[in-house]
């Protein structure tokens, strides 16, 4: 029996469910490309945040060679979708979600923020922007 896959950490789940082609070819909607969340995250870390493979691998909690395999699979799926005109759907994969804790200095509360792509961090309670990322909070809450 194959060894179970290690769970990959996703800090930034996609905001949309996927993509559909403009003026799709008839009969192609039925077979979308299924892009796993870990593949999406690999593509985002490498080609959007422009991180090195080693840095990205640490962020997702996998080894560098594993990261390379996930990234390669992601690239191939995107290429397949583009050339064959198939829709892409983000779904599944051996993943878990994790977010960072932030601390609001005005109302002294902690809150988490899932989507790091939105950099403006405002306190959900008092709307103050006087917040900071809190590593200490991260440890005590886990």
């Amino acid at each position, binding site marked *: 029996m194959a060894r179970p896959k290690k769970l990959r950490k996703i800090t930034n789940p996609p905001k949309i469910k996927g993509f559909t082609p403009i003026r799709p070819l008839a009969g192609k909607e039925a077979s979308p490309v299924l892009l796993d969340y870990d593949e999406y995250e690999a593509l985002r870390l490498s080609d959007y945040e422009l991180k090195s493979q080693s840095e990205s691998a640490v962020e997702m909690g996998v080894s560098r060679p594993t990261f390379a395999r996930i990234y390669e699979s992601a690239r191939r799926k995107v290429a397949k979708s583009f050339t064959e005109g198939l829709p892409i759907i983000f779904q599944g994969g051996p993943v878990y*979600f994790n977010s960072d804790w932030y601390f609001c200095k005005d*109302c*002294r509360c*902690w809150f988490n923020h899932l989507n790091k792509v939105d950099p403006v961090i405002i306190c*959900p309670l008092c709307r103050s922007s006087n917040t900071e990322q809190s590593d200490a909070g991260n440890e005590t809450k886990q």
Partner: protein
Amino acid sequence: MKIAITSTGNTPQATLDSRFGRCSYFVIYDTESGSTEFIPNPNKQAMEGAGPASIQLVASKGVEKVVSGEFGAKVKAIFDSLKIQLVIVKDCSMTINRIIEMVSKQ
């Protein structure tokens, strides 16, 4: 947007409950209509799994934020995958009224 707040009682004068899974009541506050709903927590006496069971309860109400004094070890990953934001308020003497006031002035 709906916000869940953990409460020690079923009146707006009650204070914030310091626990999430085994709090006495959940307050579901709707920022659009301004309505509040008090739900007794059926998992208060649960031996274990109170957190995940409570998540199901609040998620079924369609909340996007949860305010409590503390969250247990099991719940954060589930909330993250449901894209529900957590807010931890350490000052548990705050009343439900005060919290609703703070979140509704946005």
